[in-house]
Structures are given as structure tokens and as C-alpha cells.
């Protein structure tokens, strides 16, 4: 290979020429060379003679460096991009153009960048911003943020004025300046610089003419002598970086998102999404959820709120491990139709009663879900139609049929009668409820009796003129809610003789119950299904469809963790369970042979439900695999990502008791049945 140095230098010189990419011979040669690639040497040697081609050695190496640039090579020939070929020897990155992103993706990249920056990956963030051509925050905003975090108030004000044009609202500017000056003032006070603080107050804060009451309060703070007292009096964090960060978070609320990203935005979006999954999870009945229940997410990070990370990787979807879906066993102890059942508030006792004139109290084992007979209480001459446990679970009232004229209060632990209330033989006391003090109770009936009684059976107060059909005590402990024959629910304060109207229905209210917060009332309305009312706003929230109740009195209840579920009996022999937010049932349990009169949900064990029916049986419903009852231990591993339907054992006879009403439910993703 001969090297003609002169020609070589000429070639090199012409490569420097930006207008190089013309029709002159060398480009074509170059094309040959690049196409030959490594084999160029051979062509050089075989071709022979031409000085340009003999540039084999170093020239081809130059070419090879070009070739290795990949995509940029074909562009070199015949296009004005010859210039870029020249800069090949310089910085490679500039030939790579920033990836073109649409606005949504730009924001996504900014969010991801913000999250990484919070975690500490500064160099990654810089590279990300360079590659994507986005920027996290406006440079002015970044300057503003860093000066606030450092505590350099003057620089912060200056940067703020620069940002002024980007703010949506001029009042925002004043507010932000007020906040900064407030912080400055507090810091001066803390340092003991009273003169400086006064100057700040007079010369800078007052002229803003904003939030005068706060200015007065600030001026009173000057009298605090020592900083610890000052901090305590105002709940101020002190002049450290923490306080500056907190101030910055408050200030960033005023800046539009294109200028400065809202703090921890990606984390908040993820938390919202997990919250949504939990809210729409139909069988969600566990106390250890993927999220801790917090009302205000301000200042919390993702790891503070989300308990299990598996919900980030797969959608949270509970199966039925904690949901009562199969009949665990049936108890046939009553001799006649069973009309009512109730769990005690502490979940340890179950009371059932009916037309056989006896009240049975059962012990409940909350881990095995077994019940065992504790007492059989006789002494009633009529069928028992209503039960009410006292709030401390020690006593229970048994109300009887209309013609009974009395009611009996029992001590549930010892099985002894506490007292009887029988004011007159023409009375009818068919419903009752306890006051919170567990010493007094209210009872009433269809013939117009409405009494407040004590534990000796004496009538303390009477209310005339109301035919009471169902009773419950309000959360405030003093007001009694009563449904009457005029299809209303009204509140009564028997001691102060006051009453007020709450709601009016168009059809008869058979029974109603309150949830533990006392804010919602669940009404069984004849022929209309179940109605959920909000007692504070006095509006109908939701109607629940599916159950039949025209002829008999059917009882319903709230239940589950957080009282998220509603269960009711029905005249079509089935137990219906709804999720509080959905109109159609999430589960329909069959097994009874006659109308189901009452259902009650264990307040302490959310997977246990009991129903009683005209067929004289008591049925206990629970999750299909009873070994998964330890909700706290298993919930952490089983929540999130389980498909439902895997739990129903196909060979067990119990599994056939569970029925999914496909006609009623649409869009449910069920794998079995």
C-alpha cells in the first residue's frame, strides 16, 4: 500500500470543508469504501494505483469510525448533512437528537424524574432530563425553591418576582410573599433580633395589606422572650431545614404545575390508585388492607401509607377467604319458627328466639365459628318478636307478640330474669332499645305505648300519640329513633319531651337498624327492598334490590369490616348480601327451605353471619375454607392478586350452597359456578 502524503492531506482538508457533500468524486469513493467496510483494504490492494484509494490504512480507519456511527452514515452522501460528518470526531451525543415526546409523556417523564430526585438519584435525573429534553421545574422555580430551602429570603423574593408572570392569580403573589415574610419574621424573633423583626413587620408585612388578623397575631408574638415558648405557642417547627421544606410545600401549592411540579406527585397518584382498587374490591373484608386508613395524605410518603407492596405489582382483588359464602353448619334446636336473632355487641353471645316461646342464648367461639348452648330462657307466654342487647352485652330484652302486654329483661350471663315491664293489660310492647348507660331502655308498640323504663320495670316517662313499629337509639345517646305507622322515622328525646322529624317513606317501614357510626340507617321497606338513608342530611342514599319482603317482617343488618356490607333475609328463602356501594347483591346464599326472617352479622368476627328462618333452623355462614380464619396473619399474604372462585371445593357438599345470581349480576369476573 503506497501512501501519497500530499493527496492524503488534501483529502483531509477537503473533509473539513462544510460544503463537502457535493458531486465531486471523493463522496462516491467514500461510498465504495463504506460499503466495503473492513474489506476496503482488499479492494485497495486489488484496485491499486489510485491515490485516494491507497489511503487504505488511516483513511479506512477514519471511515470505520464513521461506519461505527451507524445510522448517520448513509446520510453523509449527497446531503448537506456532510457537516455533521465533520463533527464526528467531536462530541458524539449531539448527533443524537432528543426523543420527541408528546405532552402526556413529557409529564410522565417529569413525574418519574421528580420521584427519582426525591430518592437521591441526581445524576440519573440529569441524564434523564437531557435525553428527554424536558425539565423538572422551571429554572426560576428551581432557584426559588433552593433559596427558600436555604433560608435566603432576599433571593427568594427576587426569584418570586421573576416568577410573577407565570402565576395565575395576583393574590397568589401576595400570599406567597406573606408566607415568606412570615417565616423571615419568625426566624428573626427566634434569633432574638427584635428590632429586625419589628422592621420586617412594619416595613414589609404590613404594606402587603393581607390577612390583617394574622398580622396582629404576629405582632403579639414579639412579647415572647424565649424561642421554645414561641415555638410552642405557634406550633412552629423552628428555623431548620424541616421548617423550610414545609414552607416550600405550602408555597408550591400556589405555583402552576408547568412551572413547578406539585410535591411527591407520582406517589400521590399511586396511593389514589390503590385506594380506588380497595374501594372497588367487592369482597374486601380484611382489617389489614394494602393501605393504612389515613384521612389526610399531606406530608406522608408512599411507604408510610401502603402496607404491602404486592398491590403495586398486581391489582388488589380479594377472594372470598374472609367473606361468608358457605353454610358451615345448621342448628335445629327450636321447636317452631325462629323469628329473630342477634349477636351481642362484644360478639361472644348469640341470641335466637321465635314462636316456640323460648329465648336461646349461645356462646360463640370467634376462632372456630362454633356456637354452643348457654341458656334456654323460658317464661314467655307468647312468641318473641324482637330482641335488643344492652351495649355492654350483659342484658337482653325479649319483646313479644302484640297481645302479650309485657316484655322481659334477662341477664344473659347468668340466665336470670332481671325484670318485667307490664304497665297495663291492654299494652302492646313489641320493640325496645337500650340507652347507652345500660340502665334504662325505651319500648313501644302498635297500640300507642311508648315508654322509658328502668331496670326495675318501672315506667319513667311516657310518650303519647305514636304507634311505634321499630326502635333504635341514636349515636348521641339521648335521642331515640322510632319508625311509626305513618311511614316516618322521627327522633324523640323522652326526658326533654322534644321530637323532630327525620325521614318520610312512601311505603311501610318494617324494621330499621343503624350502623355503628350512627350516621346511616338501613330500612326494610315493604315491597320496595332496602333503603339506606343518611340521617345527617336526611336523604336517601341507595336502594338495594333483590330481596322479597311483602308479607312477613324481615330484618336486615350492617356487617363486615367497617360495616361495608349489608345483609338481609328474604321471603324467597335466601340470604342476600350487598356491598354498601352497589345496588345489586354481591352474594346470594341459599340453603333455607322457608322464608329467612332475620340475619345478624358478628360485630367482632367479620367473616361470620347467622340467619334464622321459618324452617326452625339457625344457619351459620362463613368463609369456605375455615382454616383461613386467622384474618390478621393471613390477610397480609392473601390480600392482593388472588383470583376468586378458587376457594370453593367442588367435592364438598357445602359448596353447593353458594349460588351466584348470574342474571342479577353483570360484569362480574367469576371463574367458578
Amino acid at each position, binding site marked *: 500500500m503506497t501512501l501519497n502524503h500530499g493527496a492524503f492531506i488534501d483529502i483531509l482538508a477537503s473533509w473539513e470543508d462544510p460544503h463537502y457533500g457535493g458531486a465531486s468524486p471523493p463522496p462516491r469513493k467514500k461510498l465504495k469504501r463504506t460499503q466495503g467496510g473492513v474489506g476496503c483494504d482488499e479492494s485497495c490492494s486489488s484496485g491499486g494505483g489510485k491515490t485516494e484509494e491507497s489511503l487504505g490504512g488511516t483513511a479506512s480507519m477514519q471511515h470505520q469510525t464513521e461506519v461505527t456511527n451507524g445510522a448517520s452514515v448513509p446520510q453523509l452522501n449527497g446531503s448537506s448533512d456532510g457537516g455533521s460528518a465533520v463533527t464526528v470526531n467531536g462530541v458524539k451525543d449531539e448527533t443524537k437528537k432528543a426523543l420527541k415526546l408528546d405532552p402526556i409523556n413529557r409529564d410522565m417523564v417529569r413525574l418519574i424524574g421528580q420521584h427519582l430526585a426525591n430518592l437521591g438519584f441526581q445524576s440519573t435525573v440529569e441524564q434523564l432530563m437531557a435525553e428527554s429534553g424536558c425539565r423538572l421545574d422551571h429554572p426560576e422555580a428551581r432557584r426559588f425553591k433552593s433559596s427558600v430551602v436555604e433560608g435566603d429570603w432576599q433571593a427568594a423574593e427576587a426569584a418570586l418576582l421573576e416568577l410573577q408572570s407565570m402565576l395565575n392569580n395576583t393574590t397568589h403573589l401576595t400570599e406567597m410573599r406573606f408566607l415568606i415574610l412570615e417565616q423571615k419574621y419568625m426566624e428573626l424573633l427566634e434569633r432574638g433580633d427584635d428590632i429586625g423583626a419589628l422592621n420586617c413587620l412594619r416595613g414589609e408585612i404590613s404594606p402587603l395589606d393581607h390577612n390583617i388578623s394574622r398580622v396582629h397575631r404576629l405582632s403579639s408574638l414579639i412579647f415572647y422572650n424565649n424561642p421554645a415558648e414561641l415555638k410552642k405557642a405557634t406550633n412552629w417547627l423552628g428555623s431548620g431545614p424541616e421548617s423550610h421544606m414545609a414552607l416550600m410545600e405550602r408555597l408550591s401549592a400556589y405555583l402552576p404545575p408547568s412551572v413547578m411540579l406539585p410535591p411527591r406527585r407520582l406517589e400521590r397518584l399511586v396511593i389514589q390508585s390503590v385506594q380506588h382498587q380497595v374501594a372497588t374490591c367487592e369482597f374486601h373484608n380484611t382489617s389489614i388492607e394494602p393501605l393504612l386508613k389515613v384521612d389526610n395524605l399531606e406530608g406522608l410518603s408512599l411507604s408510610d401509607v401502603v402496607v404491602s407492596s404486592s398491590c403495586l405489582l398486581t391489582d388488589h382483588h380479594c377472594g372470598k377467604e374472609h367473606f361468608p359464602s358457605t353454610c358451615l353448619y345448621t342448628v335445629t334446636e327450636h321447636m317452631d319458627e325462629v323469628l329473630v336473632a342477634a349477636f351481642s355487641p362484644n360478639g361472644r353471645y348469640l341470641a335466637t328466639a321465635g314462636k316456640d316461646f323460648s329465648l336461646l342464648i349461645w356462646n360463640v367461639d370467634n376462632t372456630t365459628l362454633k356456637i354452643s348452648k348457654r341458656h334456654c330462657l323460658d317464661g314467655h307466654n307468647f312468641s318473641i318478636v324482637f330482641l335488643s342487647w344492652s351495649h355492654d352485652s350483659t342484658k337482653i330484652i325479649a319483646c313479644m307478640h302484640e297481645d302479650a302486654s309485657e316484655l322481659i329483661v334477662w341477664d344473659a350471663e347468668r340466665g336470670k330474669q332481671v325484670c318485667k315491664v307490664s304497665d297495663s293489660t291492654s299494652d302492646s310492647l313489641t320493640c325496645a332499645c337500650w340507652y347507652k348507660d345500660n340502665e334504662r331502655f325505651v319500648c313501644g308498640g302498635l297500640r300507642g305505648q311508648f315508654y322509658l323504663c328502668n331496670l326495675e320495670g318501672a315506667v319513667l316517662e311516657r310518650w*303519647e300519640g305514636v*304507634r311505634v313499629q321499630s326502635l333504635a337509639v341514636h349515636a348521641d345517646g339521648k335521642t331515640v329513633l322510632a319508625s311509626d305507622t305513618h311511614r316516618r322515622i322521627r327522633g324523640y328525646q323522652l326526658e326533654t319531651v322534644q321530637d323532630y322529624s327525620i325521614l318520610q317513606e312512601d311505603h311501610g317501614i*318494617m324494621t330499621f337498624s343503624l350502623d355503628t357510626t350512627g350516621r346511616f340507617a338501613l330500612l326494610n321497606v315493604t315491597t320496595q327492598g332496602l333503603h339506606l338513608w343518611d340521617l345527617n342530611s336526611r336523604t336517601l342514599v341507595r336502594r338495594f334490590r333483590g330481596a322479597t319482603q311483602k*308479607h312477613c*317482617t324481615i330484618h336486615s343488618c350492617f356487617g363486615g369490616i367497617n360495616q361495608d356490607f349489608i345483609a338481609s333475609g328474604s321471603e324467597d328463602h335466601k340470604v342476600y348480601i350487598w356491598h354498601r356501594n352497589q345496588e345489586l347483591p354481591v352474594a346470594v346464599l341459599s340453603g333455607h327451605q322457608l322464608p329467612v326472617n332475620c340475619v345478624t352479622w358478628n360485630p367482632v368476627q367479620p367473616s361470620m353471619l347467622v340467619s334464622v328462618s321459618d324452617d326452625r333452623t339457625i344457619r351459620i355462614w362463613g368463609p369456605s375454607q375455615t382454616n383461613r380464619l386467622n384474618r390478621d396473619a393471613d390477610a397480609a399474604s392473601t390480600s392482593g392478586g388472588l383470583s376468586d372462585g378458587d376457594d370453593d371445593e367442588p367435592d364438598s357438599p357445602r359448596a353447593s350452597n353458594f349460588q351466584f345470581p348470574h342474571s342479577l349480576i353483570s360484569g362480574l369476573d367469576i371463574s367458578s359456578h
Partner: protein
Amino acid sequence: MGRVYIEHPGGSKIFSCGECCTPVTNRKSLISTRFTGATGRAFLFSSVVNLIYSSVQARMMLTGRHMVRDVSCKYCSAKLGWIYEFATDESQRYKEGCVILERALIVETDGIEEL
């Protein structure tokens, strides 16, 4: 049948089923007393509760041809009267939707003073 749900019409004078004393209606709903049933006198009421209705039959009455349903007590199923569903004669239209209860089959009692 579980615990049968009984409503109460309220009012100062209440008419109830003669057999089981389930309240059915009151004086306020009384429209006319000049009717005759199988057992003698009968009253016409505008609104009633706690009754079950049979299937509709065509009947020839003193006043003309009517479509009626027999009406019984919800609790004890004693027959108490009938309800006019359709009157062929234009002059009898006022009876439609109203219930006839035979005086011998119901009892009248006092109600309570109600709010």
C-alpha cells in the same frame, strides 16, 4: 309464615277485622254507608291496609255490571268484602278503587290521639 307485617291506618275511630282485630281502615276513609252486602249493611272506604285481594271477577249487582276482587284479612284470611276495579256504567265510576267492607264482619274501636 314468620311475623306477618301489619300496618296501621291511624285515626280516631278504627275499623278492624271481626275475627282477629287487625286494623283495616278508619272513619276518615269512609265515603258512604248506604251499601248492601251478603250479610246486610256495608260501608264504602277509600283507603285500606292489611288486606289481600283475590283475582278479578265480573259480577252483576243492583247498580249494574262491575269487575270486582274479593278482599280478605291479611292475618287470618277472613273474607271481609270486595273492591271495585271497573264499573261498566259511567255513573258508577266513583266507586272504582274503593273497598266495600260488610258491617257485620268488622268491628269499630277507638283510636288513640295521634301526632
